[in-house]
């Protein structure tokens, strides 16, 4: 009873502060601002109101409303909230291994918004995340694009407005050894591709029947969840997020995408450096992961931190992902910094953490850069985004401060400690195990 009362109280407070953020403009003054879609602004001012960016520019050149709450952020660095294109936070699950392909399964039906994973992500500056169903399937289900807002239920985090029939995420696919196994799983790479092609041919057939019905309910084919989701993929409305590592597996993805005309984002792409030109020529974006040593599984033995620079040189759109728990959401900025270490440009690495990821999730108009009209999702950093000594000091989501390292509880979330990641008496919120 006590706990419930406490929760109600907390939500009242959050609700009130939300309303507050909606009404009163806030000005963040004096920081170096990285808008991402423009040059960095020294001594910049950012104005936000109603959860949106209202204005930004050089301090003095931006009109600060007289009723604005002023935040002095002199000496700090401001940049957009980070976009993680591939994560497993939220304690969700996906395909259940009853077969290799589960286009009907939605991870949004299985996410715990109270999972500590979301708070860890905020501590790392992540504000938008593509939560994926787990690995080990050719198609493990529909992903969910989430904004890490204060949430009581999953509806508070979704970007989409219709969780039942809308498009609230992408479609997770995988190839290579990840999805190879005992029946009903494929035993070889060629069989993997054949199973996927067969299913997409079926979906094309279903799509044709829907088209032929021309809106006439009597002529519509029987509803099939798997087919409906795949038609969205074929129509380019739902993006495929494809786990792939080896150069030949990457080529298989490009071939399938071309054959069926679906939109795809390559995820992991360990051997991207071998086929960067082919990836760029196909116009396919790639979200990479950087790890501290190669191997750990056969597909990742030839992974290189030079993937970022090689893809950049080839002209491909490059993003990053944590694959949390493979890497820790709290250290997401570190990944872009390691890409810079390996030769990627600072500008492209910053884009990779923000706007590139946003574009990969079809959210480029909402998040990923600081521009008037876009969501007021931004970070206050203590220094250069690529320095090991820099900390995420504050994370703001739609004008609300969601993380503050100065607050002892948030500080613990950033560094860890006794019982920090304990979720309840019965279950520890340990992310991980996924890939």
């Amino acid at each position, binding site marked *: 009873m006590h706990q419930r009362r406490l929760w109600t109280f907390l939500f009242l407070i959050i609700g009130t502060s939300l309303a507050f953020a909606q009404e009163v403009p806030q000005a963040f003054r004096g920081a170096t601002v990285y808008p991402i879609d423009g040059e960095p602004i020294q001594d910049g001012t950012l104005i936000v109101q109603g959860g949106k960016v209202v204005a930004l520019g050089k301090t003095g050149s931006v009109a600060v409303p007289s009723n604005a709450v002023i935040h002095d952020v002199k000496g700090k660095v401001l940049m957009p909230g980070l976009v993680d294109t591939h994560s497993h936070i939220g304690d969700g699950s996906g395909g259940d291994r009853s077969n290799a392909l589960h286009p009907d399964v939605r991870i949004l039906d299985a996410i715990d918004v109270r999972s500590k994973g979301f708070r860890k992500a905020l501590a790392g500056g992540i504000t938008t995340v593509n939560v994926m169903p787990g690995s080990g399937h050719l198609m493990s289900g529909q992903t969910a694009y989430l904004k890490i807002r204060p949430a009581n239920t999953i509806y508070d985090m979704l970007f989409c407005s219709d969780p039942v029939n809308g498009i609230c995420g992408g479609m997770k696919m995988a190839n290579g050894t990840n999805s190879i196994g005992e029946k009903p799983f494929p035993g070889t790479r060629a069989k993997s591709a054949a199973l996927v092609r067969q299913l997409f041919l079926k979906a094309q057939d279903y799509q044709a029947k829907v088209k032929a019905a021309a809106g006439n309910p009597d002529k519509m084919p029987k509803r099939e969840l798997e087919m409906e989701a795949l038609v969205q993929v074929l129509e380019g409305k739902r993006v495929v997020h494809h786990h792939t590592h080896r150069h030949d597996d990457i080529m298989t993805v490009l071939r399938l995408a071309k054959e069926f005309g679906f939109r795809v984002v390559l995820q992991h792409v360990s051997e991207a450096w071998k086929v960067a030109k082919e990836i760029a020529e196909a116009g396919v974006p790639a979200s990479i992961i950087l790890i501290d040593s190669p191997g750990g599984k056969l597909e990742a033995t030839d992974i290189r931190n030079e993937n970022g620079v090689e893809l950049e040189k080839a002209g491909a759109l490059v993003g990053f992902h944590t694959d949390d728990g493979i890497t820790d959401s709290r250290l997401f900025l570190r990944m872009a910094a390691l890409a810079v270490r390996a030769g990627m440009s600072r500008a492209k690495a910053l884009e990779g953490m923000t706007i590139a990821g946003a574009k990969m999730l079809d959210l480029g108009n909402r998040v990923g850069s600081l521009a008037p009209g876009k969501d007021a999702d931004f970070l206050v950093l203590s220094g250069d985004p*690529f320095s090991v000594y820099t900390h995420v000091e504050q994370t703001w989501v739609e004008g609300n401060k969601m993380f503050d390292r100065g607050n002892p509880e948030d500080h613990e979330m950033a560094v860890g*400690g006794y019982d*920090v990641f304990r979720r309840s008496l019965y279950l520890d919120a340990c992310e991980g195990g996924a890939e």
Partner: protein
Amino acid sequence: MRMRRRTIVTIMILSLLILSSLPAQVAIKGETVYTMSGAPITNGVVLIKGNKIERVGPASQVQIPNGYKILSGKVVTPGLVDAHSVVGLAGMLNQTHDQMQLEKSEPMQPELRAIDAYNAREALVEWLRNMGVTTLHTGHGPGALASGTTIVVKTVGGTINEALIDSGMVAFTLGESVSQNFRSPGTSAKSVAMIRTEFLKTQDYLKRKGNKDPEKRPAIDLKMEMLARVLSGQTKVLFTTQKETDIMSALRLAKEFGFKMVLDGAAEAYLVMEEIKKAGIPVILHPTMVRPGGDTRNVSMETAAALQKKGIPFAIQSGYEGYVPKTRLVLYEAAIAASNGLSFQEALASITIGAARIIGVDKRVGSLEPGKDGDVAVFDGDPFEYTSHVCGVIVNGQVVSEICR
């Protein structure tokens, strides 16, 4: 004419052969040289002759003799010391045939020797070496009550004989992983009971071994022999424990049987620092970025700083990884500690001289001093910065890497 040219060529080849057979002579110049045996030297020089350090000092006082190969960088440090790894027993591929760090047939096999399993040519050894690690404490991993021995190696050499520099410790573990790997022990209390039973057996074995009548002495038992070395203090126990309760059990066991111990992992060390300090036990701390899950769920990035403040000797390890990435890098782990309360020099000590002391090889490695091994790492900036590079690695006086990574 023709004769003369041939003579010149012969002389050139001969002189090249003579030069290459001379002991390596290397000079490393650094804008800042962290010797770890005194204050950092601005514009310093490290001279190496053969496989040992010859001189260290400011450029104004140390002349580089002719014929020395010169390397230079912004920052020069001792070759890095990874205080605990399983690399060389565990390989990059993560397939059954290259995972030799844990034998699961029985929970207590201290007699398994790391020298019989270390693959000096493992690709991950090269990976660590290229990132500045020159000394590696590796061997049998956590996950069994006693999994076998560890060794201290240099990250060079084609065989164990060429790589080995010290005999290491015996790896013990208390924690969830033991119960996951074996049917019994299934609980922490059973684990402790089983360890105590084996040490009591060893005490009895030693008593029988001391019998004046050779007929009444027991047959040589490899397990008992290894545990006897532990009881006599010849070999230390590397005790992997993460939870406070298991740390306390390890301390209790060390006291009961009087063995020498180094605590390993110790995710919850911050809860019992007073007890660890009183016992005088050093800590080889978990990687700073270890995933907070299972036994390490209460891990904190600030533990290194807390141990430093408390005055408990510690090192930072790369640890054991079962999946991706297959190994961590102590350089990166110390960097995160340095951004979470540890000073730059303290963090560097945790992967150089501090680590060397705990694994017992500080007479040879861990600092830049005349007479010590010629192990050096060269950086193009602050070693801990993500965007700096390891640009030179020297092991035993040999330049093994000159590519910036």
